[in-house]
C-alpha cells in the first residue's frame, strides 16, 4: 500500500492503471457531442459511419447530397451518418471534514482514496478521448471551484493539481456541492461523485434526484473507512464529530451492535435510492487498493453491458 506522504503524482502509477486499459467506460445513455468518442449519439452529423437516407429539402447542405443515388434512381437524398460523440465527465469530490478521517488500518484518509480514484478515472477517460472537468468546494468558506471539461493534453495535469490541492475541512457540505454541480453543469454529462455520503440531510437525496432529472448520468463512488464499517473500538472513549465538533461519551462494546445496525440501514437506504435512480454505486475502502476496486467496478459494468 502506498505511503500517505506520497504526492498524488507519485501515487499515480501508470503500470497499475495499465490494468484498466482492457476496459471501456461507455455511457449507458447516448450522449450528445461533436467529437469522436465511444459513446453513441442520437445526433447525426459529421462521421464516417453511414446511418440512412432522407429526402432532400431545400436548404440542406448540397455537399451531403448522395449524387450516386441520384444518378441511379433520380432521387435527391441526403446521406446521414451515425456520429460517435465524446462525453463530458465531471469529477465531483466531497471535501467535508469527515473525508479527512483515517482509521487505524487505513493506508490513507478517505479524501486521499477519493483523489486516487478520481485521478485514475480522469486519466482513463482522457485516454479514450473524452472531456473531463471538475467541481469541488475549496477552503473553509466552501467556494465552488470549477474546471471546464476539456480534452487538451494538459487537462490531466490541471485535474491532478486541483486534486492535490483539495483539503477536507469545514462542516457538512455535500448538499451544497450537489447544488453547485446542478448550477454549473448545463449539458448532459457523466458525473463521477466521490463522497462518504455521511451527511444526514434530505437535501442530498433530493440533489441526486435533481441530477438525474437534468439528464446527467451519475456514478457514485462511496469512500468508507473500515472503522466506519465495523466500528472496531473497544475502550470507552469520547468521540468527537470532526464536522460538527459535537462530543459523545461512548462505550463501544455496548454501542457496536446499534451502530452496525444503523450503518447497515444507512447503506441500504442509499442502495435503494441509487437503484431507483439507476445510479451505479461503488464502495471503496481505505484499507484496500482503490484501483483494484475500480477495475472490478469497470469489469462488472462491461459484463452487464
Amino acid at each position, binding site marked *: 500500500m502506498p505511503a500517505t506522504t506520497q504526492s498524488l503524482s507519485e501515487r499515480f502509477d501508470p503500470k497499475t492503471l495499465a490494468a484498466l486499459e482492457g476496459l471501456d467506460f461507455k455511457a449507458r445513455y447516448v450522449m450528445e457531442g461533436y467529437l469522436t468518442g465511444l459513446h453513441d449519439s442520437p445526433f447525426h452529423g459529421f462521421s464516417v459511419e453511414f446511418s440512412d437516407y432522407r429526402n432532400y429539402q431545400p436548404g440542406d447542405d448540397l455537399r451531403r447530397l448522395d449524387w450516386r443515388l441520384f444518378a441511379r434512381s433520380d432521387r435527391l437524398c441526403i446521406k446521414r451518418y451515425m456520429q460517435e460523440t465524446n462525453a463530458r465527465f465531471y469529477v465531483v469530490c466531497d471535501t467535508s471534514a*469527515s473525508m479527512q478521517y483515517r482509521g487505524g488500518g487505513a493506508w490513507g484518509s478517505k479524501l486521499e482514496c477519493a483523489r486516487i480514484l478520481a485521478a485514475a478515472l480522469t486519466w482513463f477517460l482522457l485516454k479514450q478521448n473524452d472531456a473531463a472537468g471538475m467541481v469541488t468546494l475549496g477552503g473553509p468558506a466552501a467556494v465552488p471551484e470549477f474546471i471546464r471539461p476539456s480534452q487538451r493534453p494538459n487537462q490531466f495535469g490541471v485535474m491532478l493539481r486541483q486534486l492535490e490541492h483539495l483539503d477536507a475541512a469545514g462542516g457538512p457540505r455535500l448538499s451544497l456541492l450537489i447544488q453547485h454541480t446542478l448550477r454549473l453543469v448545463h449539458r448532459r454529462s457523466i458525473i463521477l461523485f466521490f463522497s462518504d455520503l455521511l451527511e444526514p440531510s434530505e437535501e442530498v437525496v433530493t440533489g441526486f434526484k435533481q441530477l438525474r432529472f437534468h439528464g446527467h448520468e451519475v456514478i457514485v463512488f462511496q469512500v468508507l473507512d473500515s*472503522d466506519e464499517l465495523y466500528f472496531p473500538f*473497544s475502550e470507552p*472513549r469520547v468521540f*468527537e464529530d470532526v464536522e460538527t465538533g459535537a462530543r*459523545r461519551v461512548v*462505550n463501544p462494546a455496548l454501542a457496536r451492535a446499534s451502530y452496525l445496525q444503523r450503518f447497515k440501514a444507512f447503506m441500504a437506504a442509499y442502495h435503494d435510492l441509487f437503484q431507483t435512480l439507476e445510479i451505479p454505486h461503488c464502495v471503496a475502502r481505505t484499507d484496500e487498493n482503490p484501483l483494484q476496486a475500480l477495475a472490478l467496478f469497470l469489469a462488472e459494468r462491461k459484463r452487464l453491458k
Partner: protein
Amino acid sequence: MPFSFLNPWFWLAALAVAAPIWLHLRRKQQTNLVLFSTLRFLDDQPTPRQGPLRLRDLLLFALRVLGLVLVIGAFAWPYWRGANTEPVQESRVYILDNTLSHQANNGFARDRDRILADLDRAGAQIQTAVIELTSAPRVLVSFGEDRETARHKLLALQPSFQRGPYLAAFRQANSLLANSLGARRRIVLLGDNQENQWNENANTPPFLRNIQVDLPTPAARALPNVSLSDPRAQRIYLGDKSFVNFTAKLTHSGDAKSADVVLRANGQVIFNRSVDLDQQPGRILLQAQWEADPATWVRGELIADAAPDALPADNRLFFCLAPVVEGKVALLAQSPYLRLALSPEIMRGQWSARLLEPSKLEAEVAAGEDADVLCLESNYLPSSDARKLVARYLSGGRGVLLLINRVTPAIRGCLRELGFEAEGVVEAPKDNPEKFQFVFSNHPIFHPFLSPDYGNLMDVRIYKHVRLRSAQAMPLAFSENGAPLFFEGAKSPGKLFVAAFGMDRDQTSWPIDQTFVPFLDLALQAARSEDPTPINFEPAEICILPLPIGSQAREVVVRDDHRELVRTTVDQGKAQLRLPEQPGIYSLTYDDQSEVRRLFSVNPSSKESQLSFVDNPEALSLWRTASPPDPGRTPPPSPLGRVRLAGILRQRFWWWMVMGGLAALLLEMALAETRKVQA
C-alpha cells in the same frame, strides 16, 4: 554564577523536565479522545460506574508511581530535615597555595594537613571547597563532594614548583561562593602571603562582595634563602678551541655564610667549590668556562647548598645549550680587520666567510645564494646591486650588519630607506676620543661583556662616527656624550644591526681591542636567523613550538630520561606544549622517532625564591567591595522558604531523583505504546 531566570542552564533544565511530562500528559489526553467522521450512528453513553477499580497492568502502574514519587521526592528533597539537608550556615573555600615558595619551612604540607583537620571537624552546617593555587588555579574539591573523596584528593597532592597569581584563585573562589548555600561566605587563604604574589595584580577592580577573607599570619617578614636563577650558557671560541661560557645568579638572604656550589655538565663536574657569602652582595654572578664539543648538546645542572635555607627546592638549576652550526657570512667590506677577523684562522667552526667582489655583485644578486648574514660597509650602498642584496637579506629573514664608514647624499638616501637619518659626521679630538659609556647589557650581544674575560668595552675608542637618528631602531650602545653608536633595526623581518662607524683605525680603535672578535661573533650570531623558541621554561608553562620548515612530523613528544611525558599533535607547523611540572632537562622528539630534536630546561621562577611576606596586603582591601559580616555573630538558621534554588540544583541527589523519575516516565510511555500496539 548566581542563580537567575536569565541563566540559560535554568531554562534548559526546565525544558528537559517539562518536555517528557508534557508529552506524557498530551498522549494521555489524546488517547481518550477519538476524532470520528460522524456521530449520527452513535448515542451518548456515559460510562456506567463499574465495581471496584482493578489494576490491569501492575508494571505500568508501578512505573507511573515510581516516576511520580521520584519527581515529587526530588522537589521535596531540599526541604527534608535530614543530616544532609541541614541549613548550611557557612560556605568556606580554602585556597591552598601550591607554589614553590610555599614549600619554605614545609608550609604546604602543614596547610594541607590543616584543611584535612578542618574537613573532619566541619559538620553539615559548613560546606567546604578547596582551590589549588598553581600556575592555573583549579577547583580541587567542590561543594558537593563528600569528605572521603576530598581527603583522597588532598592527600594525593604533591608540592609543585609552579608560580601562580593570588588573583586568579580569589576569582575562582568568588565564583564558587556565588553559587553556595551558606548564609556566611568565607575564603581561607592557606599560603605564605608572598609579597610579590600580592603586588602583581594590586590594581584589579573590586569583586569580593560580602565575603570574609582569612589570611595566614606569616611567621616572619622574611626567611633565609639561597637560590639560583637566570642560567645563561653561550659558546665562545678561543683559537681552535670551543668553550661554553656559563653564568647564573646566586641570590642569598639570611645568615648563610657560605654555599657549596657544584656545576656539572654532560656528566662532568666543572667545578665544586665553596662560595663565600658573608659580606657579599645579595646577588652574586657565578661564571664558568669549560671546553666543550661544539657539535653536541650541552646539558648540565648547578647546585648550591647552604644553611640556613628555608627553601631548598630552588637550589638546583638546569641548563642546556644547542650544538653549534657553522654560520655563513657574506662580506662586502674593505676593512682588513674585518676580513682578518672573519678568516678561517679565527672563526673556524663558527663562521665561514665569503668575500663578495664589488665588480661581481650583479652575479651575486642573480645567483640568489644568500649567506646567513651580510656584513657590509656603507660606501657600497650607492651600488644598486648592493642595495638589492640588503633588501633581499632583510626581507628574507636573514641578517645584515651595516657599518657606516662613509656618508654621502646617496648613502643618506639609502639609510633613509632603512629607517635611519644620517645627520653628519662627528670627529672627536684626538686627545679626547669618544668611548662606550652606556650599553644595553641585557642584549645578547653585550650581555657576555659583563664578564671581564671578554675584555672591557669601555676601552674602545671612537674617533669618528656618523650621528644617526632613527624612530624605529633601538640604540644598544651610547657614547659618553649620549650619541647612539650601535642600533638594532626593527623594521624588517630580518635583523639589521647598524654601527655608526666603520672598523678602520682612523675611525675606531676597536679592531685592535680584545673585545672585537667576541663582539663580531656575537653580533653576527644575533643577526643570524635562528629558532626564536627559548629553551628555558618555567614548570607547567605552555609554549608554542614552531617546527622547522618542511618538517613532516605529525606529533611532538616530550620525554625525560626514562619515559614519555607529553605528546601533542602538530597543527599548521606548530605544536602547543605544556611543559612538565618538575624542574629538569627534557628532550623533544618527533612522532615515534628516538632522535632528539631539541632539549628544554625547566626551572622555577626566580620570583618564587624571594621569601619576603606581607601581613596585610593592600591588594585585598582593593578587591573587597564591602565589609564582611561579623564572624562572631551567628546567623539565624535558614527557614525552609529561604532554601535557594541554586543550592537545590547543586545537590547531587536531587539530580539523581529527577533523572530517575523522568526515566521511569519515559519507560512507562514506551511500555504503554508497546501494549497499545499489541492490543
